[in-house]
């Protein structure tokens, strides 16, 4: 059974030394992907729907306190634990190395959610609505997920698809930096860099070779497509 091949292997590099934790990416993601509005109760029950969260860690004691920010989104693992456990192929691996989620196949076993070590999969516990006219903002490119299905970061696959169509029209491959997910597009400090890891000259590939690079929960062998660059604090000056 030969594997599906593709000129792309989408990946991201997150420079923790640049990240200021400002939260622009969080809103960008929510705006781009029709992520539901969650009231206080919903979030208090641990049922928030945001696909991208900025984890804030405290280290040390006053006055030697440091804060570390860690933006966590779907790591689009090459060896994704969430994929094989899905009984209905709702979670699958696409040729570009994206960790796809087909909402209309999802039956809601939530097995993928359990088996995702990064806890980036969010489940539609509630049926979500947008009061008029807030629904006018909903993007026509992405489905509005019904209750009972799992959803998560897609690296803004709709943008990738658009870019692919354009590139196909011009019979070329997508140029570096041509397509960006909402989060990295808006990140003021350019901490989030997105690109094609299959192309060794792309910015993301070059950054992914940085000596500061590490991956989240590397020891689990999930081989994420997201690389982090260490940062934050004296020890890295």
């Amino acid at each position, binding site marked *: 059974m030969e594997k599906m091949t593709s000129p792309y292997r989408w990946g991201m590099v997150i420079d923790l030394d640049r990240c200021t934790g400002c939260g622009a990416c969080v809103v960008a993601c929510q705006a781009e992907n029709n992520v539901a509005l969650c009231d206080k109760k919903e979030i208090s029950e641990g049922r928030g729907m945001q696909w991208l969260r900025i984890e804030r860690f405290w280290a040390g004691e006053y006055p030697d306190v440091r804060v570390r920010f860690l933006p966590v989104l779907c790591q689009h693992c090459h060896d994704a634990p969430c994929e094989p*456990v899905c009984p209905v192929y709702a979670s699958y691996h696409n040729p570009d190395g994206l960790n796809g989620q087909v909402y209309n196949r999802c039956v809601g076993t939530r097995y993928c959610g359990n088996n995702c070590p990064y806890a980036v999969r969010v489940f539609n516990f509630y049926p979500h609505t947008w009061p008029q006219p807030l629904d006018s903002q909903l993007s026509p490119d992405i489905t509005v997920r019904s209750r009972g299905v799992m959803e998560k970061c897609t690296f803004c696959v709709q943008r990738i698809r658009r870019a692919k169509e354009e590139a196909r029209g011009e019979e070329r491959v997508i140029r570096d930096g041509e397509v960006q997910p909402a989060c990295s597009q808006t990140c003021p400090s350019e901490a989030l860099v997105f690109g094609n890891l299959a192309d060794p000259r792309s910015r993301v590939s070059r950054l992914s070779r940085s000596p500061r690079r590490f991956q989240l929960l590397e020891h689990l062998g999930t081989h994420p497509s997201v690389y982090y660059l260490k940062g934050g604090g004296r020890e890295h000056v």
Partner: protein
Amino acid sequence: MSDTPVARSATQLNDELLSSLRPPSRRWYLLVLFLLAVVAWGLVAFTWQVTHGMYVTGKNRPVMWGFYITGFVFWVGLSHSGTMVSSILRLSRANWRRPILRAAEAMTVFCILVAGLFPLIHLGRNWTFFYMIPYPNQRGLWPNFRSALLWDMTAITAYIIGSSLFLYLGMLPDLAVARDRSGGWRRKLYGLLAMGWRGSAHEWAVYHRASTLMAALIIPVAVSVHSIVAWDFAVTVVPGWHSTIFPPYFVIGAILSGVAAVITLMIIIRRAFNLEAYLTPLHFDNMGKLLLVISLLWSYAYFVEVQTTWYAHEPIEWEVFSFMADTYTPQLLLMLAGNSVVPIAFMCFRRLRRSISVMLTVSLLVNVAMFIERFLIIVPSLSHKNMPFAWGSYSPSWVEISVNIAAVAGFALLFVLFAKLFPIVALTDVRELEVREAEVPLGRTRLPSIAGKE
């Protein structure tokens, strides 16, 4: 009709052992009504969930599995009672097994039926459950057999069919007897099921070979079923789940709860159909010994699991364990008491093993503890997964609790109906024993002579 001793004792045996088939009393109807009510309440709760959404449960991120899966594992565990008890004992030719065979096997079938419902109940979109069934479909895809859930489905299907056939096989001669002694629709029903059994020497010969073979076949299935249930957890990367000892550990746990459940059941049946003569302290004594052994095995497995975690002290694994120990201390202690300390301590003593009340308490305690054990395996691990920032907690909602209670009632209901409809004590097996133990004169005394082999 006849006045020969054998005949008389046979008739009398039939009368007593088939007493449960007599027309139901008011108490029986009340019981059935009560159980129906509870089940109905469960259905209401479930409907509420289906119409509103998963938020009516206590689940959240990261704890995406809760009471439903706990119930699932628990019931699959219970379902190991029959097959294990009856087939192991059948193969080991333990004669004392005979009166409890039927109850145990029936229990297996009903438990696995109940268990099979939980994965469907817990779906986010229950109405699309058929997406998981392998058949050529318009959606252009077959289910993913690389998913442990599909293994579950296959195994449970196999187990449901297998154990039902096993139950039926065991009942075949009894059905013939029931046929001969009843009239009306019952006669039709039994006649149909008895398949025209006459008990000719040839039939008996084949029958014995078949039942031995079935017993041998059903055991690996039972073992595989619970191993697969264990794999649901063991194949993940969830700290506290990803453990190689899980399959054997789960199987042992399953048998433990199974044996305990059979004991409880024996006591109930004994009372309900006044079969004191056939379910004697001897039987409880033996079951007690079995319980003791399994409980020892369980304790061993649990110890192995914990001590390796403790020794390796892998940060997140240990985090999960200490979180569980801190947050669920009372439950943890109750579990250890119920699954290990109490059974081992009590079952060591013949007098306690033969005391019905003690057996009842212990067996019930064991199953309460087993439910807690499943819960403590599933929930704490999910609460404190690898990403500390996204830790959470879980407490079941009224919906989940209702459905779990309804499951118990549903099981009881099935059993009560079954007991009214079919011989609940393995009539033929018991009579066979009686016949074999025909007393022969020897000098001035008479001794029971066990004739022939099985």
